[in-house]
C-alpha cells in the first residue's frame, strides 16, 4: 500500500487492519546475481539502487540479525556534506542531494530535517581551517557560511559565551545539513528494495565466501550455501572479519563509539552543534531527547559498549559548552562498532578477488553516507567501475599515497 | 646567612655547575658568584610555584576544625634519575653509599625526613631534597650510571594532612589510598582532574605529598579548593 495521508486516514477508520509487512521476510533462494552481505543502511540502499538504477533485481541482502540492527540504528542521526578534501566533497554532496529527495523517492518519511549543522570554532587557527573547508565546499557548489560570534549567538544563545575556558569565536554553518530518523532509513530502503524484488533475508549469517579460480562463487551461510555472481560486503564494524574469510587484511580497525540520549524535553536547540574545543556534539530528536556524542573510546572492540572515561569526557564537553545542561539527565548510552580506517575515509572498491566488492571503513561517518554509499556501490557492482563521486575511495590509496586524511592524523585509526 | 633568595640562587648555581659538562659554565661559576650584587639578588628573586594561586588561612565550610590541612612547600630540590641500561645495581650502590638511601621498588617511596627517593617509572626515580644544592653532586656521582636532570623548579609541591585528607583526595585520585592498599612509603604517578601528579604518603596520619607540574599549579589549586571546601581547610605557607 502506498503511504500517504489518505492511506493513514483510511486505516485509522479501519483499525489499522490492512497494513502489511513493510518488507518481505524472504527465505534465501539458491542463487542470485548479487548477494549483498549486511542488511544495514548501506546494504539495503545498495540493493535498492541496484534495482532502481541498474535493473538488477536478482539480489539478496543477507543479514545475520534483523534489518537495521547495526550502526544505522546506533548513530547520532547527523547528515551533512561539510568536508574539505576533494576526495570526499562530491561524494558527500551526492549523499546530501539524495537525502533531499529520499522520502519522495522511496515513499517513506525518514524525517530528513535540514536544520543546519553548526561547527563552532574557538581560535583564529580553527577559524581559518573552517574557512578553508567552507571555501572548498563553496567551490563545489555546496552551501557554507562562516559565522562570527554574534552569528552564533543568534542561533544558540544559551551556550557559554562569557565564562568559557575556550571562548566561542564563531562557527561554520551548513544550513542544508541536519538530522534524519535513522531507523526509518533502513526500513524505508528495505521496503523500497523489497518492492522492487530484492530478497531481504534476515537471521542469515555469512560464515564463508567460496572462491573458484580467483573468483567468488557464493557464500556459505547459517541457512546454507547461496550461489552468487557477485558478492558485495557492506558490514561496517565487521569488515575485517568478512575480509578475513578470503585472507584479506584491511587498513581497518574496529572501534567502539558511544552515543547518548537525554530524557525528552520541550524544544531546546534547533540545529546540530559541535564543540570545537572538546568532544561533544548535540542535536535534539523530534521526540525531545538530546542526542549527543563525542569521541570513540579509542581501543579496538567488538563489544557494543564503552567505558566511563569517555562518558565523562563527553559530558564535560557538554557542560563546558552549554552549562544549562547540568540538570538534564542522561537517559541511555550505548556503543556501536565502527570500521576505523587508516586515513579516516572509507573504501568503496573492487578487491583482488573477482566478483568481490568492498564497502567499508566508514569510521563514524557512515550514516550520512548511506544513500551515496548505496548509490555508488551499486554503480561499482553493476558496472565494475567506480562511480566518479566515489573514485577516491580506492583500496590501493594507502600504497600510492592518495590518502584522504581530513584530520591529518596519519595511520592511527583511533585518532581520526 | 643571607636572605633565602640569595641562598637559593647560589645553591642552584652550585648544583648546576656540577651538573654541567660545559667547561665554560663550570669555570665561570666562581667569578659569576663574585659578581652578584645585593641589587641583582633583589631583582633575581625566585618565584614560588604556588605564588598567585593560593591564599593562606582557613577556607571552605567554616564549622569546627579544618578537615584538611594544605601545607605549601617551596625551596626543595628535585631531580630525575634514570638508570642507564643495566646499571640499576650500580645506581643502588652509589645512592646507598653517598646518601644512605636505597632505591625504592615500583610504587614505593623512601622518605627520610626531607630527603627521599620516589619511584617514578621503570628505572626512574625522583630525588627529593630540602634544597637544590643537596643534589648538586648527583650528576657527577652518577656519571655513566644514570642520567640526572634537575627538576627543582618543575613542580609545585603540597603536603596534605588532616582527618579528611583521604576523603578529599578520593575526589580526584583514582588510586586506592585505603591503609590496606596504600600507606607510608607508597607512591603513585597518576592524574587528578586531568592533571598529572606524583603523590606519596609520608606517614600514617595520613600525610601525603603531591607534586604537580609547575604550569598547572593554578588549575590544580582550583581543584584542591573545590574538593576540600566541604570539609573546611587550612592553607599554610611553608618552607621545609
Amino acid at each position, binding site marked *: 500500500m502506498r503511504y500517504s495521508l489518505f492511506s493513514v486516514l483510511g486505516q485509522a477508520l479501519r*483499525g489499522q487492519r490492512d497494513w*502489511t*509487512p513493510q518488507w518481505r521476510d524472504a527465505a534465501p533462494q539458491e542463487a542470485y546475481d548479487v548477494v549483498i552481505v549486511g542488511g544495514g543502511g548501506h546494504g539495503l540502499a545498495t540493493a535498492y539502487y541496484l534495482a532502481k538504477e541498474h535493473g538488477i533485481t536478482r539480489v539478496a541482502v543477507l543479514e545475520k540479525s534483523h534489518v537495521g540492527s547495526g550502526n544505522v540504528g546506533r548513530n547520532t542521526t547527523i547528515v551533512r556534506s561539510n568536508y574539505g578534501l576533494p576526495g570526499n566533497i562530491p561524494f558527500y554532496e551526492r549523499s546530501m542531494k539524495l537525502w533531499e*529527495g529520499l522520502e*519522495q523517492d522511496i515513499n517513506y518519511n525518514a*524525517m530528513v530535517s535540514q536544520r543546519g549543522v553548526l561547527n563552532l570554532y574557538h*581560535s583564529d587557527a580553527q577559524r581559518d*581551517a573552517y574557512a*578553508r573547508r567552507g*571555501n572548498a565546499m*563553496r*567551490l*563545489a*557548489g555546496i552551501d*557554507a557560511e562562516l559565522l562570527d560570534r554574534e552569528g552564533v549567538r543568534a542561533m544558540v544563545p544559551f551556550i557559554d559565551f562569557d565564562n*568559557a*575556558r575556550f571562548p566561542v569565536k564563531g562557527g*561554520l554553518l551548513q544550513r542544508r545539513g541536519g538530522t534524519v530518523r535513522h531507523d526509518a532509513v533502513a526500513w524505508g530502503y528495505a521496503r523500497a528494495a523489497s518492492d522492487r524484488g530484492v530478497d531481504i533475508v534476515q537471521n542469515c549469517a555469512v560464515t564463508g565466501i567460496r572462491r573458484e579460480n580467483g573468483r567468488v562463487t557464493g557464500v556459505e551461510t547459517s541457512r546454507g550455501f547461496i550461489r552468487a555472481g557477485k558478492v558485495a560486503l557492506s558490514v561496517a564494524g565487521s569488515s575485517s572479519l568478512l575480509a578475513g574469510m578470503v585472507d584479506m587484511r584491511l587498513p581497518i580497525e574496529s572501534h567502539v563509539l558511544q552515543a547518548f540520549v537525554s530524557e525528552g*524535553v520541550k*524544544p531546546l536547540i534547533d540545529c546540530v552543534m559541535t564543540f570545537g574545543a572538546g568532544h561533544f556534539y548535540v542535536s535534539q530528536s523530534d521526540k*525531545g531527547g538530546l542526542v549527543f556524542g563525542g569521541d570513540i573510546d579509542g581501543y579496538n572492540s567488538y563489544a557494543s*559498549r564503552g567505558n*566511563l572515561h569517555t562518558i565523562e569526557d563527553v*559530558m*564535560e*564537553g557538554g557542560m563546558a559548552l552549554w552549562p*544549562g545542561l*547540568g*540538570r*538534564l*539527565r*542522561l*537517559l*541511555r548510552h550505548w556503543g556501536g562498532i565502527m570500521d576505523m580506517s587508516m586515513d579516516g575515509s572509507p573504501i568503496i572498491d573492487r578487491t583482488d578477488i573477482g566478483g568481490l566488492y568492498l564497502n567499508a571503513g566508514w569510521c563514524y561517518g557512515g550514516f550520512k553516507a548511506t544513500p551515496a554509499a548505496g548509490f555508488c556501490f551499486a554503480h561499482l557492482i553493476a558496472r565494475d567501475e567506480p562511480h566518479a563521486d566515489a573514485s577516491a575511495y580506492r583500496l590501493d590509496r594507502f600504497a600510492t*599515497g592518495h590518502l584522504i586524511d581530513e584530520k591529518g592524523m596519519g595511520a592511527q585509526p583511533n585518532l581520526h | 646567612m643571607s636572605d633565602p633568595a640569595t641562598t637559593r*640562587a*647560589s645553591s*642552584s*648555581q652550585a648544583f*648546576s655547575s656540577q651538573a654541567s659538562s*660545559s667547561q665554560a*659554565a663550570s669555570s*665561570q661559576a666562581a667569578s659569576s658568584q663574585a*659578581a*652578584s650584587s645585593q641589587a*641583582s639578588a633583589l*631583582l*633575581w628573586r625566585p*618565584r*614560588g*610555584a604556588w605564588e598567585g594561586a593560593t591564599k593562606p588561612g582557613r577556607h571552605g565550610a567554616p564549622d569546627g576544625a579544618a578537615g584538611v590541612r594544605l601545607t605549601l612547600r617551596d625551596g626543595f630540590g628535585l631531580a630525575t634519575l634514570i638508570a*642507564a641500561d643495566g646499571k640499576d645495581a650500580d645506581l643502588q650502590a652509589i645512592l646507598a653509599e653517598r646518601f644512605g638511601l636505597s632505591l625504592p621498588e615500583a610504587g614505593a617511596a623512601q622518605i627520610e625526613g626531607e630527603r627521599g627517593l620516589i619511584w617514578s617509572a621503570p628505572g626512574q626515580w625522583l630525588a627529593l631534597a630540602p634544597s637544590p644544592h643537596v643534589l648538586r653532586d648527583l650528576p657527577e656521582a652518577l656519571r655513566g650510571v644514570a642520567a640526572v*636532570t*634537575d627538576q627543582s623548579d*618543575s*613542580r609545585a609541591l603540597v603536603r596534605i594532612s588532616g582527618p579528611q585528607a583521604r576523603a578529599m583526595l578520593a*575526589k580526584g585520585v*583514582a588510586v586506592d589510598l585505603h591503609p590496606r*592498599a596504600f600507606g607510608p612509603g607508597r607512591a603513585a604517578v597518576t592524574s587528578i582532574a586531568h592533571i598529572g601528579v606524583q603523590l606519596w604518603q609520608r606517614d600514617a596520619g595520613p600525610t601525603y605529598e603531591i607534586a604537580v607540574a609547575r604550569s598547572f599549579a*593554578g588549575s590544580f589549586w582550583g581543584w584542591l579548593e573545590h574538593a576540600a571546601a566541604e570539609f573546611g581547610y587550612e592553607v599554610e605557607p611553608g618552607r621545609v
Partner: protein
Amino acid sequence: MTTLALQRAEAPVSATSADQPFRTATGGLIDRNRPRDFSFDGRRLTGYHGDTLASALLANGVRLVGRSFKYHRPRGILSAGSEEPNALVELRSGARREPNTRATMAELYEGLEATSQNRWPSLALDALSVNALLSPIFAAGFYYKTFMWPAGLWEKLYEPMIRRAAGLGRAADAPDPDTYDHAHAHCDVLVIGGGPAGLAAALAAGRSGARVILVDEDFATGGRLLAERREIGGVSGAEWAARAVAELESLPEVRILTRTTLFGVYDHGAYGAVERVSDHLAVPAPHAPRQRLWRIVARRAVLAAGAIERPHVFGGNDRPGVMLAGAVRTYLNRYGVLPGRRLAVFTSSDDGWRTAADAIAAGGGLAAVIDTRTSVPPHLRRMAEAAGARVVTGGYVAGAKGHLGLSAIQVVDGYHSTETIACDGLAMANGWNPVVHLDSHLSRRPVWDEAIHAFVPGALPSGMQAAGAAAGRFTLAECLETGARAGAEAATACGFEASAEAVPQTDPESVAHTPLWRAPKPRGKAFVDFQNDVAASDVELAHREGFRAVELLKRYTTLGMATDQGKTSNLAGLSIMAELTGKDIPSVGTTVFRPPFTPVAIGAFAGHHRGKEFRATRHVPSHAWAEENGCVFVETGLWLRPAYFPKAGETDWLDTVVREVETVRTKVGICDVTTLGKIDIQGRDALAFIERVCANPFGTLPVGKARYAVLLREDGFVMDDGTVARLAETHYVMTASTANAARVMQHLEFCRQWLWPELDVQLASISEQWAQYAVAGPRARDTLRRIVDPGFDISNQAFPFLAAAEITVGGGIPARLFRISFSGELAYELAVPAAYGDAAWRALMQAGLPYGITAYGSEALSVMRIEKGHAAGAEINGQTTARDLGLGGMLAKKKDYIGRLMKERPALTDPDRPILAGFRPVDPSDRLRAGAHFLALDAEPSLEADEGVMTSVAYSPSLRSWIGIGLIRRGTERHGERVRAYDPVRGADIEVEICSPVFVDPKEEKLRV
C-alpha cells in the same frame, strides 16, 4: 453510584487530618511531627518529613499528576519507586528546574515546588488531549507514512508541530547554579540494593572485615521491608532493617551510601553510581555539591536490586488511581497514605490479597478483589468478603472508567459476564520482574525462568552474583538466605573468612502466580508502555507490519524507550508479541538494557570540569608580569599564552602587533616560548636514537651547537619540527612545538621502548623545569650581555649562529643559551630555571630598556615567522610532507629514520602537489585571509580549478602590506605568477602574486651578525 461509593468509603478515614484527607490516623515511617509545606501547580499542600512527593500528593488526594507523551491522557501515580513511568513533574524552578522528575523518588522538603508538565493551559484541561480522540490515526509509526508532501513543509510545519507536542518537561533556561562532585571508592564487596537481601549480604561480608560498600537508591534503607507488614525473627521488617543498618554503621570498613543509584556496570569491576547529596534540600548547603558521582571499583559485587512489579494490560489501565499492588502497600504501610478510599485489587497471585489485607488493616475500604485464578485460598476470600468486598475469581478487569481519575472498573468474570464495580483505586498484582538491568550492561542476556514467568540474570559479569528478588528468589526467607550466602561468598573470594549465619524466622508466604499477560477482551486502549503511550494495539500493528524482532518492535513502536527504559512495560510487549507470533517469550527475545539504570544528571558526570575548569590552564613563567602589563592572552591548547601587549593609546590589536614587530626588527624584543616541549636526551646511544627519530642528519653536530630538526611520522608526513642542541658528548636537548609536545614525547618513548629497546638512551621531559625566552632583534646581544654573568663571551665570534651553551645569569643562576631564531633577527633563546622565570623576564625588560625593548606575544611571533616563511601549525597539519614545506632538501639520504620509506610514495612525490610559496596582494591595500583557495585568474570556481590554499597570513610591517604563505601546485616554479585568493565564505576574491615564502632577509644575513 460512584459518588455513593465514595461517600460510603469516607467513614473509616474521617479521623485523618483535614488538610491531608487520605493520610491514615497512625502508622507509617513518616515523621508526623515535622510537617512539610509544598506546592503542586501552585496549590499549597502539606506532607510530612519522610514522604516522597508522590506519597504527599496522594495524602492530599491528588491523583492527577501529569499528561501522557502522545495522547495527553491524564496520568497519576503507578508505582512507589524509580520505575515510575507516569508521575513525572518539573521540580523546582528557574535555573534549578528539573524536568521529568519522578514524584515517587523526590523526597519531600520544606518549600518543595512541583509543576505538572506536558499540558496546556492546565493539567485538568489540556488542549492537546484532543490527541486522544485522534489516537486511531496516531498509531505506531504513522509518521513514517505521511508528512511527506510537499517536501519543503517538513522543516517549516510538520516537524516544529511534532517537536512542540513531543518532549515532556521544560529544561532549565539558565546555567545550572549548583556544583557537582566526583569521588572514587574501592571495596572488596559492593552490595547493590538495601533491601533484605542486600542488608543480609552486607552483614555477612561486613562482619568478616571485608571492605564493603552498600548502595541504595532510597533515602531510607530497607527496601520492601519498609513497605510490607512482615516480621523477621519476631520484630517488624523495618525494625530488623534499622538494626542491620546500625550494625553495618558500626563496622569500620562498611560504607552505606543512601540516595545513591548504582547506574552502570563497566568493564573489570568498575561501577558508576550517583549520590543525590542535596536533592532532598531546597538548595545545597554551602560548599556542598548537589550530587556526587562515584566511580566504584569492586572486587566482587552482590546484585540485590530487587524486582519490579508488572502491571496488567487492560483497557484504561493508565487511569489515575490504577496502581501496582506493591506500591499500594508501600503507600499504606510506609507512608500512612490510602491510595484510595475504596480500593479494588486485580491479582493473579496471593500477592494482591496482601494488598487487600493491608488496605483493610489501614482502615481503607475494599471494593473488590478480582483474581484471574479460579480457585483462591478460602481464608483470603473470607477476609475480603468480611470487609464487604466483591470477590471475582477466574475473571479479569477489562476496562477502567473515570476521566481524570478512576471511578469504576469493568470486570469480566469466569462466565464472561461483565459487571461494573465502583472504586477509586485499583491495585494490580501481576507478578514481579527481577531487576536484570545492571547485569545486562556488560552485554549479558538474562534467561527466562518458567517457574516465576520472568527473566532472571543469566551468566553474570565476572565477580558479580545476584541475590534475593533480583535473582528471582521472591520470598523473604529466600532473600535473607541468598543475600547472606552471596555476601559471605563474595567476602570469602576476597580472602576473608565469612559465613552465612542462620536466617532468622520469617512468616510463610506463597509467591506462586500465573500472570495474565493481557486482558483477553479489553475495553478501550490497553497500555503496555505508559510513558510512551504504546498500546497493545500498537504491538499488534508492529506485528502486522513485520516489526517482530524485539529490537524492531521497540524501535517501531518506541516501546521501552521512554525515561523508564520500559521497566514496567518491556515484558508486557514481549508477551503480546509472543502470543501473536506463536512463540514463547524467551524466543521473542529481550531488549538490551543500557546504562544508566535510571537517568543521571549530565552535570554529575561533568563534576568539577565546567566553565573555566573545563580543562586545566597552564601559565607561562612570565604570566604575572604579563598580567600586570595588560597583556591580552590567547588559549593555545592548555596554555594561556601572551598574544600581544597593548600600550596606552593603542586601540587596535594590529597597532600593537605592528609596534611589537617593528621594535623587534629594529631594536629588541622578548617573547615567552616556554610552551615549547623540551626533552632531555642522554645516554650512550643518544646520537643513534636522534638519528633514527629525526629525518635530517645529526652525526656531524658538535658539542655546543644546535640544529633545526624535522620529525616525520612513519607514513612519511611531517609530525613536528624543532631543534636539537648537543650540550655534551652524550647529552642533547630537543624541542618540540607547543601543540605537539606531549605527542612527541610519547612518540620518542615508543621508539625507545618498543622499536629500539637495544638503545641505551634516557629521556626526561624538562619542559616545566626551564623558562625559555626568545630575545630577538639587533640589540638582542646588547640586552643579554647585561644579564649574562661576566666571563661568558657571547660575542658573534665566540657564540655564533646556532651555538648552544650552559651559562649563568644574574649572579650565578644556571641558564642555557641557544642562538636560534624564529623571527629571522639576531636572536637567542635563554632558558633559566622556572622559579627564576619571572625574575629573568623582569631583568631582561630592565636590561633592554636603554635599547627600547618590547615584550612581544604570539601574534608578533607569528607575523615574523610568516615574514620568514617558516612553516608552523597551519602548514604542519598532518597532511604535508617535508617536500611540500620546502624542507625536502635537508632530509638525510644515508640513514634509516621514521618515515623514510613511506614519504616516497608516488602521490607524495607528485610534482603537481601543492608546495609552499609566498603570496602578496596585487593591490597592497587588500587584506589576505588564511583559508582562501587559489584559482587561476580566469577560472570558474570549481573543485577542479582549486590549486591550493592560503595557510597563514599576516600584516607585514616590514613590507607594509598583507602577506601570506600557502600551498599551491608547483608553487616554487611559479614565482611572479598571479592567481586569485578565493574566499567566498568571507566574501573575498583577491588577486595575489606568487612569490618566495621568505619575505624578509632571504640571504639570512641578520641571523649571523
